[in-house]
């Protein structure tokens, strides 16, 4: 059976404004197999921000990413896109 690797995830995330986007991005980039993180701010509210979070890597573990977001205090609203690679 040929292994399938997760190489990109795009998430719709609601995060507290107190967590700066660059801190969120750099802390996610420290995860295993993560090569690139992009955070785009979609909407700004009084206490929260809606961001589009794109995580790219060689062999991502989606649970690691979700767990990290959970631990930092973010709410993951949906997984909008994923990309996988064979081999």
């Amino acid at each position, binding site marked *: 059976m040929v292994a399938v690797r997760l190489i990109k995830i795009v998430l719709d995330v609601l995060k507290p404004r107190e967590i700066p986007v660059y*801190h969120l991005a750099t*802390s996610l980039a420290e995860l295993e197999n993560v090569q690139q993180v992009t955070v785009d701010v979609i909407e700004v509210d009084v*206490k929260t921000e809606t961001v589009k979070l794109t995580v790219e890597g060689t062999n991502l*573990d989606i649970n*690691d990413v979700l767990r990290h977001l959970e631990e930092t*205090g973010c709410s993951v609203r*949906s997984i909008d896109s994923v990309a996988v690679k064979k081999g």
Partner: protein
Amino acid sequence: MEINLREDSPLTKASLLQGFLQRLARVLDVEIARRYFALNLFDGMLTVLGFIVNYFFLGGRNPSVLLASGLIISIGMAISGLTIAMLVEYSELRKELNELEKALFRDLDGTHIARTKMATALMNALVNAIAPILGALAVLFPILLTSIGLIGFTQAFELSLFLSMLSLFLLGVYLGKNAGSRSIVYGIIMVLAGSATAIIAYLLGAV
């Protein structure tokens, strides 16, 4: 959405959590600790300065009494500062978290943001407690020198007055710089407050 978490995640690595917490701590509310520090350092210095001046002009010449009383006063202020700051900070923290939980539609207990807020509250309370002791120690230092026989009591009293005014001036300068305005004016206002305390303490002691 439901998140299925894996227990053996490499994310449990302490370094990752600590790193994030440290970065976050740099962003959160250091301003409040700075404010508490200035307020209580000032409180500690003025209270002990007033006490020393009053004691001197009442005719007291025992450095041990001054040292013990000065320390007790500052410890009292520290305990009061710690208790009230803990209660105020915790109450504010809980309120902030409740509001944030409503905005995020989730419980934040155990998250980095909640822990960072708790650490900030604790840091603020500790600063609130330590600052008056430091202020008092700055003023009491010459009295310590006289109690071990290095200088005379009157000299120690004068040195204590000088150190108080210098510390107050420097605190004022620091606050002025922080505000980005004329630091000398801030320093002079602080010295005037110290002088007013010393004069009132003198009048109460001399009468």
